[in-house]
């Protein structure tokens, strides 16, 4: 499957060469608000890391910081051993925004052909591009809709076109912002199967955000966020064991209560 095309840069993939993402004291300010406050975490290579937390907790901002489209980022943020936003990272990261970002007045195939031409330009690469486009369309199960206008597709289909664009460049890191929101259960299951096969077969790292806690069980590792801070990180099992709970949702609630109690106690101590 992998490595037919194109040749990977030498010395890569190296799963052992440190985490895919490493953050220390990561802070992001948007307008008057500090959206992320001194985050420290790692995302291991070749695994699926779930970024979970309620809406508005800063998940999307964190993802933008990682892909390098967020301004006012302070602290340390290393992505694939380079500082986030480095121009050399642009073709190594696939990013899918929450709203499907594709051209609604182009067909599925034309959308992918354009983005493929940006990632791998030149006449010489035309055959390789064609193959990649066809594979990406098949990956997201849209082969039968390849010649439909993106604007005429359903919301879920459109977000899959958006995902297919991210799969084009055979990226080492895929950052997916709520990719399964609003999809039916069957499609959600299929997409998660696809994510797992991408991680297993291509050795890619996936960072997937969601505000639905039951998706947490499908991840190798979790980052739980709340109000711009990391509440906890670890495997789903470890989180459940640590909090003595049955599900990740309960674990999350437990951690929220714990944090609230700690803050309250802190205030008490100050008095």
């Amino acid at each position, binding site marked *: 499957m992998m490595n037919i095309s*194109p*040749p*990977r*840069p*030498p010395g890569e993939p190296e799963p052992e060469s440190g985490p895919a993402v490493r953050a220390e004291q990561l802070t992001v300010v*948007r*307008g008057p608000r500090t959206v992320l406050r001194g985050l420290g975490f790692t995302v291991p290579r070749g695994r699926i890391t779930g970024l979970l937390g309620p809406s508005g907790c800063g998940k999307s901002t964190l993802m*933008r910081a990682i*892909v*390098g*489209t*967020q*301004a*006012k980022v302070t602290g340390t943020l290393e992505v694939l051993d380079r500082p986030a*936003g480095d*121009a*050399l990272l*642009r*073709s190594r*990261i696939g*990013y899918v*925004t929450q*709203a*499907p*970002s*594709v*051209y*609604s*007045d*182009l067909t599925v195939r*034309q959308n992918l052909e*354009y*983005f493929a*031409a*940006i*990632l*791998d*330009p*030149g*006449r010489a690469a035309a055959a390789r591009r064609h193959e990649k486009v066809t594979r990406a369309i098949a990956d997201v199960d849209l082969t039968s809709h390849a010649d439909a*206008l993106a604007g005429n597709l359903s919301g879920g289909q459109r977000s899959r076109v958006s995902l297919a*664009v991210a799969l084009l*460049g055979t990226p080492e890191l895929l950052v997916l912002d709520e990719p399964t929101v609003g999809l039916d259960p069957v499609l959600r299951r299929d997409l998660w199967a696809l994510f797992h096969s991408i991680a297993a077969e291509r050795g890619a790292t996936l960072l997937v955000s969601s505000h639905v806690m039951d998706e947490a069980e499908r991840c190798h590792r979790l980052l739980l966020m709340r109000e711009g801070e990391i509440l906890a990180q670890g495997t789903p099992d470890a989180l459940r064991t640590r909090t003595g709970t049955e599900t990740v949702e309960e674990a999350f609630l437990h951690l929220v209560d714990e944090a609230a109690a700690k803050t309250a106690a802190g205030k008490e101590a100050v008095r």
Partner: protein
Amino acid sequence: MTTTTPQPNVSALSFSRTTATAVRVLRQLRHDPRTIALMIVIPCVMLLLLRYVFDGSPRTFDAIGASLLGIFPLITMFLVTSIATLRERTSGTLERLLAMPLGKADLIAGYALAFGTVAVVQSALATGLAVWFLGLDVTGSPWLLLLVALLDALLGTALGLFVSAFAASEFQAVQFMPAVIFPQLLLCGLFTPRSAMHPVLEAVSDVLPMSYAVDGMNEVLRHTDMTATFVRDALVVAGCALLVLGLGAATLRRRSQ
């Protein structure tokens, strides 16, 4: 490229990425035949209308017709580009493209190339109709008219791209047309010679690019040769287009605030 691996080539301007962008923009247009028809047909209909409005005074038709041949592409391209780039900004595709190894210059040049092509077709049809069928009396070469029209189209593309940065919605983008284009239309010498205006307005018109576009058209109308004034006019319009394109590039931010 210096390495054998397909390393991202993030140069300022890449020929294949620019043409890929132009092809994409044209493909988008092709799925919208009504827009194409409107862009191509309206200038012709307007000229036809104008010809018979000035049925009794063909000299007036010559002057206004030639000026309009320069103004149509500017207005059409301004509208089309401002809406198209606004869509690109609001749909998230711009953010996605800028997270890819695409230079801002590639994107802008791609748009300019695509809409420039449409402008050539539009201007060629309008000029051909005016000169051969409506009896527009041009002393100079119709090719020079076409050249100015193309430069005007580029200027329109540039202005549209630039103002789209300041529009939060399509409603606002459309309102920029009267704000940016109408004052130039009033001051460009179409309605009354610029020298007959209030001195303050004349001075203002001296720094507006459309004045030079209309001047250039009138030079072709009256002189058989390419005059020095014509060359100056063409250079001013081209220079303005490039300047505004540069400003437009500065408004494409890789990082959101």
